[in-house]
């Protein structure tokens, strides 16, 4: 993953950068599989590596393939900010319980109930699905509305222009 990140930073050809971000997402999905989070890995592989790569390619087709370089070099302050922010993040993780600790707060609150009762209450073998669709049904409803709104926004911004242009083409054809 580190190698792909360095590649993304260094390479000026945006086509390769987009493909490298797809590779990065796929590696991330592999890490989720290693951590036993198959559902998350599935989403990451489908959305991160698949759809968003295609959407970025579509955007590249609209704009240009090569990155424009600005005259002044701002990499030093940028690196400084990145290092400071990274140091804070690492400092924050020092307080976190070790990964997979059974006594961690996240495994104490509602997780035991989901794990033990969901087969009785919901009757589905996949606990992730029962949490997502039933216990946290409101959240998933909200997510669906977010996606709906995103698509409606895209239609409103760039979907309508196409239709208008088509109409003018038709009227032109009628005139001729």
């Amino acid at each position: 993953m580190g190698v792909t990140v360095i590649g993304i930073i260094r390479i000026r050809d945006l086509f390769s950068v987009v493909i490298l971000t797809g590779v990065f997402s796929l590696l991330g999905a592999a890490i989720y599989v290693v951590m036993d989070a198959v559902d998350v890995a599935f989403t990451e592989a489908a959305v991160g590596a698949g759809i968003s790569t295609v959407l970025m390619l579509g955007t590249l087709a609209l704009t240009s393939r090569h990155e424009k370089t600005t005259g002044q070099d701002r990499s030093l302050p940028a690196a400084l900010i990145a290092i400071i922010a990274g140091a804070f993040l690492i400092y924050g993780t020092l307080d976190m319980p070790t990964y997979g600790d059974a006594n961690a707060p996240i495994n104490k609150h509602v997780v035991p109930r989901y794990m033990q009762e969901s087969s009785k209450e919901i009757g589905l073998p996949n606990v992730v699905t029962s949490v997502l669709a039933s216990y946290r049904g409101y959240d998933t409803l909200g997510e669906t509305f977010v996606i709906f709104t995103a698509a409606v926004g895209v239609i409103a911004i760039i979907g309508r222009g196409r239709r208008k242009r088509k109409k003018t083409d038709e009227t032109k054809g009628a005139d001729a």
Partner: protein
Amino acid sequence: MNLGELRFMQRKVILRVVSKFLIPFILLFGLYVQWHGDFGPGGGFQAGVIFASAFILYALIFGVEQTRKAIPAWVTRSGLAVGVLLYTGVGVATLLLGENFLNYNALAHDPAHGQHIGILLVELGVGITVCCAMITIFVAFASRARS
């Protein structure tokens, strides 16, 4: 990838044949993930994305016009709303049956059975909305690039 490369991709025989061969399997896999999400990994969101990716692949290889013949704009646009309405409709149905919003226990006599029906319908709603949203967004971008 610029316009020329996009056209170049559409002329390649191998790409056309292989994608034609793959698309039915992608659609089938999307349906499997949709209906099997309660037993294995996956669910409405992933299924919607996979289902949409089949159409996006078709659009990449055969062009947006052909894709719009396969799945017209009104289908994806109404699909967007149908998915959300199906989800909220399940919630309203549980309300009318005398339970809390989105409490699927009310949908059948046996609470676990009701949960099963509710989750299946809700996941279907998510799947429809996600699939239509992805196709809509991609087609909006791609048809911009063409002109």
